[in-house]
């Protein structure tokens, strides 16, 4: 295999990695503040993509033709805002009431909430059960660097994703909200005692994570030019895997995990002798093996169980 082809695969892998990392960061944030897994996260990604799609249809029917870059910005902001709201509502009415119940119940209730979202889109979005074309709003061209083709839209999406990840990093490390999130994640009781509002921080975290999910959904839609009501299930499982590989609760672990999963899939598609169709089998098999090797993820916190 020559270098140009390798670079091409690395580029595609990086694109996938950014999407997965955006989803995984949400999982890890929720786990950080509440020690829960919100498994409807993948479906929030999907709902975000559909919100973007609906917004773009609404835009073009209301204003005729809109400059594509304005459309992209409006679509992204609407989707992110709407999902942030959805995330906060789910935290308030589904997750927080079960906060003291067995963790399994939270997992279940969010799995079911995901099913509600998925089925609602399938049933109530016009022809929701068919794959929908997502508008191509980004410039079409590409530059050829030797034999490596760099599509403009991929480059822009990659940049958006990287900016979002860096933004989250800055938000968590440099702002008061980030400080509150880290404090609640470390010790909710002490954080409350120090005057950090517990519920507001939790809701803000869920809004943040779900907003990122919406961004991932829109990026996904723009990249593949297609969205589908069932895409959330696989994306959710992948994002969860990525967060777990990295070590739940660790934002950098989630980002690392996202890229590792994308790498596994790309390796599975490129290098496996049998067939590239087995790439997901290979990737999930590798996740199970990784879990057996490092049960608490690669960047796990050292912890002793309190009895």
């Amino acid at each position, binding site marked *: 295999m020559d270098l140009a082809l390798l670079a091409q695969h690395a580029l595609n892998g990086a694109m996938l990695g950014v999407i997965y990392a955006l989803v995984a960061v949400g999982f890890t944030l929720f*786990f950080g503040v509440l020690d829960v*897994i919100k498994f409807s996260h993948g479906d929030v990604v999907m709902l975000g993509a559909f919100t973007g799609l609906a917004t773009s249809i609404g835009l073009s029917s209301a204003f005729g033709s809109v400059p594509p870059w304005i459309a992209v910005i409006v679509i992204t902001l609407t989707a992110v805002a709407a999902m942030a709201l959805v995330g906060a509502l789910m935290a308030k009415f*589904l997750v927080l*009431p*079960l906060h003291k*119940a067995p*963790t*399994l*119940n939270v*997992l*279940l*209730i969010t*799995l*079911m*909430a995901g*099913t*509600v979202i*998925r*089925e*609602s889109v399938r*049933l109530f979005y016009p022809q929701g059960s068919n794959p929908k074309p997502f508008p191509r709003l980004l410039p079409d061209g590409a530059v050829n660097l030797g034999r490596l083709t760099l599509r403009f839209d991929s480059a822009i999406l990659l940049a958006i994703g990287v900016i979002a990840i860096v933004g989250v990093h800055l938000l968590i490390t440099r702002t008061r909200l980030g400080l509150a999130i880290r404090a609640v994640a470390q010790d909710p009781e002490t954080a409350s005692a120090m005057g950090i509002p517990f519920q507001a921080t939790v809701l803000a975290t869920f809004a943040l994570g779900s907003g990122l999910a919406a961004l991932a959904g829109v990026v996904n839609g723009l990249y593949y030019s297609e969205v589908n009501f069932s895409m959330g*299930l*696989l994306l959710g*499982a992948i994002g*969860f*895997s990525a967060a*777990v590989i990295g070590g*739940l609760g660790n934002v950098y672990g989630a980002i690392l995990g996202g890229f590792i999963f994308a790498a596994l899939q790309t390796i599975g598609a490129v290098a496996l002798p049998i*067939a590239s*169709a*087995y790439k*997901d*089998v290979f990737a*999930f*098999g590798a*996740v*199970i*093996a990784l*879990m*057996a090797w490092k*049960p*608490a*993820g690669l960047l796990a916190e050292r912890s002793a*169980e309190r*009895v």
Partner: protein
Amino acid sequence: MRTPSILPALFATVATAAAVVLLLLADQEWEVATMAGVAVAVLLGGMRLGWGETVHRSATAHRRIVTPVTWLAGAVAIFLLREHNFELLMLCTVMIFMIAGLGLTVQFGYAGVVNFAAAAFMGIGAYTTAVLMNSTALPHPVVILLSGLVSAVIGSVLLLPLLRTRGHYAALITIAFGILFRTFLEVNDALGGPQGLKVPGLELFGHAFNDAIEINDDVEWSFYLNYAAGALVVLFLAYELVRRIERSWMGLALDAVRLDETAASAFGLNGAAWKITAFSIGNFLAGVAGSLYATITAFIAPASFTFSDSLILVSIVILGGLGNPLGLLPAALVVVVLPEKLQVIQEYRFLLFAILVIAILLLRPGGLIPRRAREYPE
């Protein structure tokens, strides 16, 4: 204390069997809706008035009579439906889901081992049955047993990661396995790919289950009667197995491991060993259920064993009351029969079940018939 009367238990058994038959035979949507309403009212009202307690006391005091009567009532219910193909098929499906649900009860309810891949383990059983029946001449009961065993053995691949992880991490492993399994089936040509495999009918001691039973020239009983009877026998065996596990020292050990593994190990219980036992028994039962499913539907495909199906199975267990095998019957009826009978909700069934489970988790975490605290003879 005075011995409670046997009548409440007998009445409850017979009424339940009659309700199941009536529900299956109802062909008007308003009938079904009314019956569902009455059932909910009886269940909720009965709880308030303490009927559940009365029935429970009476059943416990007369276990030796009530247990056979219950299974007899099941057999009579099947016999009453002898000429109705579709109703018998639905009843078979209910029983298969109950068998798989019994497996999940052991895993989730007793040992606290999560399994979000129950449909995948059913799938392993179903595919094993298809392969063994198509390519070997093994007696069919042996095939069913082997399907369960293969399911348990393949499940043991997950044991190492499952035992090393806990909570959410363990959940992820089974979810990943479920998705992996389905993808594997779809891309694997040897097992029929997305088109699936055909499965021949069951045969037992020279009696082909796919032949209708002809009594005389006028009367012909549905061939599903064979399968329903077979499923009832398997359900009986599975139920007795699970009940006996629960009531024995094994159940006590499993409960202890679930409730507090550290404390259990301080009392000398080997948590890992108990989790392995429970996980394997559960997967065995799921595999057997899948095997029956394959022979009854005569055709299997990857689309029948998806992650959503695993979630449906989990919903049945939660809906019925986690850890209580009795709750599986109403829960499986709700999940299997209601959507078939109420065409209005057919299209919306996944949505409705999801909302139902959310409501149960928020309002009545114990399920329809919550598990009782263990009772010790004085």
